[in-house]
């Protein structure tokens, strides 16, 4: 389709409680810059059910917030969200659109771009405007993070990309002064062809929300077995963090896949990432190198994890972790 405006849209995903997913608000930061370079407005799209919190957060940072509200949007379904978003895009014709690369974002993005017969670049870690052509230059890792590629979508609109959580930082926000445009778009029940029959929270009731965590303490092959995660967990507990792992530990059956960080697991960018007994295969680095501060603890002084670590301890994690945990406990007592 043809773009009707020079506007840049950010899809702000909502939770069932109406809160925004972090990545949606994060994307309003680079969105502001791209919109300025494109000479259009920055618009947020909030689809949900009573998502006032998300609308407010978006309105603090965007020029316009489009709102699609209805009970059919309380829980994410591909059909409801894709139908609604496509209808909105067709009505207003943005020139580009950013979607957070969450599970739902990666489910929605290809469905929407395919229906609009336009290009989609997945899992971007860098965004810019190509000086030559004025198109969005989408930069993303490929081959497990071994290679970076910059992709353009020159002749199709809107140009769409999904962007990894944690790559960009939320800006401060302020007064919620965006124009709010509520759209009367609804999706009939019979057009929603999937239904959620049951929701299963993690069996061990352990917190595995890696993508939302500020602190992650991860264990790898070096922990040696399932019981080796005990000191890892003890440190995570004292820091109020979440336990992560490398693929090696998951493949060995020491911990569930939900904990896995890396190319075939989760992409994370916490404030603090502590890698214990993880050598740092490129696939693991691809999933965590965006963390603010990285601490590596490993016996092997040549482990590649040390190349990305802010602080690297060469030593035995079974001796380092308990002392570190104890010191933190003492300091906080």
């Amino acid at each position, binding site marked *: 389709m043809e773009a009707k405006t020079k506007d840049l849209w950010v899809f702000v995903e909502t939770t069932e409680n109406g809160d925004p997913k972090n990545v949606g608000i994060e994307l309003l930061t680079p969105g502001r810059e791209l919109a300025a370079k494109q000479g259009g407005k920055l618009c947020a799209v909030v689809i949900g059910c009573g998502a006032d919190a998300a609308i407010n957060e978006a309105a603090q940072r965007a020029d316009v917030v489009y709102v699609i509200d209805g009970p059919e949007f309380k829980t994410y379904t591909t059909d409801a969200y894709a139908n609604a978003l496509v209808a909105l895009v067709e009505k207003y014709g943005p020139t580009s659109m950013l979607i957070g690369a969450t599970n739902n974002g990666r489910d929605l993005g290809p469905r929407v771009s395919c229906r609009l017969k336009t290009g989609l670049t997945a899992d971007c870690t860098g965004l810019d405007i190509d000086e030559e052509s004025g198109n969005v230059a989408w930069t993303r890792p490929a081959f497990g993070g071994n290679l970076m590629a910059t992709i353009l979508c020159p002749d199709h609109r809107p140009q769409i990309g999904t962007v990894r959580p944690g790559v960009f930082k939320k800006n401060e926000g302020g007064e919620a002064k965006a124009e709010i445009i509520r759209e009367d778009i609804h999706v009939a029940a019979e057009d929603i062809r999937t239904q959620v029959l049951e929701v299963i929270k993690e069996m061990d009731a352990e917190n595995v929300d890696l993508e939302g965590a500020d602190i992650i303490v991860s264990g790898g092959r070096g922990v040696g077995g399932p019981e080796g995660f005990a000191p890892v967990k003890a440190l995570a507990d004292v820091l109020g963090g979440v336990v992560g792992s490398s693929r090696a530990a998951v493949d060995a059956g020491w911990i569930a896949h939900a904990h896995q960080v890396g190319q075939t697991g989760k992409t994370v960018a916490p404030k603090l990432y502590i890698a214990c007994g993880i050598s740092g295969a490129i696939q693991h680095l691809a999933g965590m190198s965006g963390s603010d501060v990285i601490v590596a603890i490993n016996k092997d002084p040549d482990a590649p994890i040390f190349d990305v670590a802010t602080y690297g*301890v060469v*030593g035995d994690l079974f001796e380092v972790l308990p002392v570190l945990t104890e010191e933190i406990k003492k300091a906080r007592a």
Partner: protein
Amino acid sequence: MNILVCVKQVPDTTEIKIDPVKNTLIRDGVPSIVNPFDGYALEAAARIKDKNPDTKIVVVSMGPPQAQAALKECLSIAADKAYLVSGRTFGGSDTLATSYILSNAVKKIEELEGAKFDAIFCGKQAIDGDTAQVGPEIAEHLGLPQVTYGLEAELDGDMLKVRKEMEDGAAIIGVKMPCVVTFTKPAWDPRYPTIKRKLAANRAKIPVLGDDAFPEIDVTRIGLKGSPTHVKKTFVPQKKTGGIKIKEETNEDSAKKLFTLLSDASII
């Protein structure tokens, strides 16, 4: 029940190294494998067949003639029939063009097999491109419902019950067939080929759907020219240089130094 499993032959990205002088990917000698996520999709189909023995599993791959090897591997594990989609005009396709060609292949294979597919299974993503787009886009081209991030699927009347990986656990999603499901890594390992199946697979003739297999296809929507996205440049990511290394006399001293550095920097 008829299940189509879409597979891609990919370089084993865990074996890829960077040429330290030229700063480029070294692809020579890197083994080609069946994309692991597609292997999970095939295993999910095989598990349905375990419980419903009248199930037929067909695999399809789009790629160069060498991709036959990936299809033969699928035959040796669980597939009953394989098709290769391979043509010069298909080369350079991005995900939208690839999924368009594959959606045409689905219809063609249905015609050749004389039966409709009840479900199309794909891997969540391929480990070379990592886009996770082709599965949902096939669903869109064919107008089918989709479930992504599947862990396992169970037949329930005219529905599939799919266990889906969520950010904070899992969910059971009910989806009416025909449908598309993409699979991620489950808790179990896929089955291995048997010797008997391997021998049969080696002898199998794999039909090729080439450039002229789809007379109805819109040629302006395939290949490099029919792809909306273009690669402007590729580069090897810059290696970060490491920060402070700590190696004191004892591990205890190292831990204490780390603690001091982290608290001084107000990190903890």
